[in-house]
Structure formats: C-alpha cells, structure tokens
C-alpha cells in the first residue's frame, strides 16, 4: 500500500521541502498542500521514470553533500587566487577519469560535483559511459588528481548507488 502510493519516498520528501521553501510559509496548511503535491507528483509522473535509480541508504548522501559544499568554498578561493595571479605559471590539462558508476543519476551527480569543485570542469563523457574527460585549470600530477576524485567523490556515490549494470 505504502509502496504503491509513494513510489519514490525521497522524491516526495524533496517536493514537500521545495514547496515549503517556495511559498516561504511554514504554516500547517502549506505543510498539507506540500504533502499532497509530494504524493501526487510522483504518482502522475511515474510513466516518465524509465529507470528509477536504485539506492541503498540514501541518507548517507547528506554528510557527503556537506563535504562537497565545503569543497566548493575552497574551490572558489583557489580559482580566485589563480585568476588574480600570474597567467604564465598556469598549467591547464585535459585529464581522463575511468568511471565505475553506471547509474544515470549517480553519473549526473558525479559530473556536476566535479564541475563545481577545485579547478576541474567535466567536458565530455565517452560514448560507452566508461570515461569522463575533465579540463583542469591547474594540475601538476594528473594521476593524483584522478585518484583523489575517485576516492573523494566516486566512492561515496558507489556506496549509495550500488553497481547495478
């Protein structure tokens, strides 16, 4: 019964939260309306979810997102220093990262996080979705960078989105 009415409980919770933030009013009526939307929208959009992501313990993403937020602030400071510094000692590079995640949502999250964090922008995904091409603003050791991305961002995503493919 619960599974039929709430096919995506986490999506429902997100919708409720986004609704409350949108109206900027935390009264009981808005909670009720938000809850109604949280139930109705996933039900009505069920046909659009071709491959619903399979997750394991999705709440573990929360501390991960907080760490990413901290990294984004650091990334901003580093890039700002690069921009204001000398352009001659800049070491830009294209770097390939072999991927282990297959889930579409996890891939989207990983490429977005990589684009938002220190000195890297995701430029292209190979056709077989096995490799990600990054452009880095300043890189001395590309092997170390690949290892860091895999350990810091890909590993936590793999825990939540287990290899299903």
């Amino acid at each position, binding site marked *: 019964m619960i599974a039929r009415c709430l096919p995506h409980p986490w999506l429902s919770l997100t919708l409720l939260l*986004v609704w409350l*933030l*949108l*109206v*900027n009013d*935390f009264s009981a009526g808005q909670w009720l309306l938000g809850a109604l939307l949280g139930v109705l929208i996933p039900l009505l959009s069920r046909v659009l979810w071709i491959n619903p992501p399979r997750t394991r313990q999705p709440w573990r993403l929360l501390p991960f997102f907080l760490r990413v937020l901290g990294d*984004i*602030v650091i*990334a*901003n400071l580093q*890039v*700002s220093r*690069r*921009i*204001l510094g000398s*352009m001659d000692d*800049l*070491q*830009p*590079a*294209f*770097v*390939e990262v072999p991927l282990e995640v297959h889930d579409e949502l996890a891939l989207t999250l990983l*490429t*977005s*996080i*990589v*684009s*938002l964090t220190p*000195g890297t*922008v*995701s*430029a*292209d995904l*190979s*056709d077989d979705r096995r*490799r990600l*091409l990054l*452009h880095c*603003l300043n*890189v001395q050791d*590309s092997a170390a960078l690949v290892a860091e991305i895999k350990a810091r961002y890909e590993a936590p995503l793999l825990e939540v989105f287990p290899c299903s493919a």
Partner: protein
Amino acid sequence: MHPWIEALVALFLLLGSLFALIGAIGLYRLPDFYTRLHGPTKATTLGVGGMVIASMIHFSVSEQSLSLHELLITLFLFITAPVSCHMLAKAALQQKLPIRPGTGGQPWEQ
C-alpha cells in the same frame, strides 16, 4: 535593525559582489575558452552564495520570520551551472576551438 546585523548583511553583500567581480575578471584574463569556463562556474557560485546569505539574514530579521526560500536559488544554481558548463565544453570540443599551447593531455576523438 541592529547595526551589527546591518554590518553583517553588508559584509556578505560585499563578499558576494567581490566574488562575482573576480569571476568576471577571470572571464577577461584567462587565456583560452576552456580555462575561461572555470571562472564563471566557480567564482560566481560563491558570489551568489554570499548575496543569498545576506538576503536571508536581512529578510529574516526585518520581517521577524524565517526566510529560507533563497536556499532554492542556490539549489537551482547548483543544478544548472554544471550542466550548462558541460554543454559549453562539449560544444567547444566539437568545434575544435584552439587550446592554449602548454595544455597537458589530449581531448579524445569520437
């Protein structure tokens, strides 16, 4: 409003505008298309972040009720900025835009 809170709001506004300015300077100074992508995607994120925090403090205090819908701006920015950046980079690779000499590694052909 208490002058300390006003000072805090002003501080976050200044910080936000500073980072937005740095992002714009990056757009002007960085040598090629690919490096120029880095300025707007990152420095501006913190720029908007600073202004959003300032707005949250200001309206929470002046209207005596918690104002959190600015958080949605951050959320939408975090969803859209990497996607548009990725599309720009992909288009640039397709067009084979000149890459600054000295860039390590090679974009692939496919």
